[in-house]
């Protein structure tokens, strides 16, 4: 299988951007997003003893879990497709591209 990256790039540019893949646009409790989720995803340690538990409820955590699951599924699907491109070996052009 060969992949024409130029055509692929052109097709992708024509698609509309989907906000569903952006975790900051999923309606998650802002405090959880800023002080827990994004720091955790960035590799920082989150000390649960320093959080303000009046800023969110246990139900907010459950809602955030659902949204994270949706974004995670989307990220896994993209990662799966990317594997095909990573494994595809480059092929030489059959015609001259210059001169």
């Amino acid at each position, binding site marked *: 299988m060969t992949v024409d990256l130029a055509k692929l790039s052109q097709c992708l540019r024509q698609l509309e951007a989907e906000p569903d893949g952006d*975790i900051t646009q999923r309606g998650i409790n802002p405090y959880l997003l800023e002080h*827990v*989720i994004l720091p*955790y*995803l960035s590799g920082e*340690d*989150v*000390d*649960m*003893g*320093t*959080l303000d*538990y009046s800023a*969110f*409820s*246990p139900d907010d*955590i*459950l809602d*955030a*879990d659902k949204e*994270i*699951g949706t*974004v*995670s599924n989307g*990220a896994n699907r993209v990662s799966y497709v990317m594997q095909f491109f990573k494994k595809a070996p480059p092929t030489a052009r059959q015609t001259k591209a210059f001169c």
Partner: protein
Amino acid sequence: MEYNYDELTTAMDLLYVCARMIEAGRWTVENAKCTMHVDFYYDIATEALWSCCEDVYMDCNEEACITHYYFSDPCMMEYYRLCREYSRRRGLKLKDNPYMNNAKQYVREQLNGDWNSCYILHTKVNHRCASGIHFMYDENFTGEVALLSRLLNVFSFYQEGVEKLKAELAMPTALTVIYPTVIPFPLSYEKYDLEAAA
């Protein structure tokens, strides 16, 4: 930027445990002082189970790979003591007592349905921890966080139930409203000194 979401939901379970325990008044923020990481999942979940009520006992049958927990709380004991008082005043058998049946139904809704666990609800009041929940699970059980959440719901139910029962028992029954003073047999109404009796 590429994020790794794989462990995030498991780590968020730890935060959920802390939030539920703090909301229920079983923990303070100081108890939640721990790094949110999947490596601490089992430790935090187990510690929370040991703190979800006043009395917790645990035993493990290693040969059968069954873990036994017994959970009891004063609010549960008080609930069933008040149920008996309610039955006595209303002339009801315990099996016909709506508060007994509501509690049995609620506990069933919360704790039933997992293939790897089961429970027994004890409702006696003749000694400390006579009322309690005996919960058992096998080596395939992975619902510690869900169990904790449901146990907190159960004990919250009993706490609210105690208040409802106390309020209902404080209300005068129909008999005391219609017959405020009981005239002892065989005295007649004219001979009975109502003022002295009051």
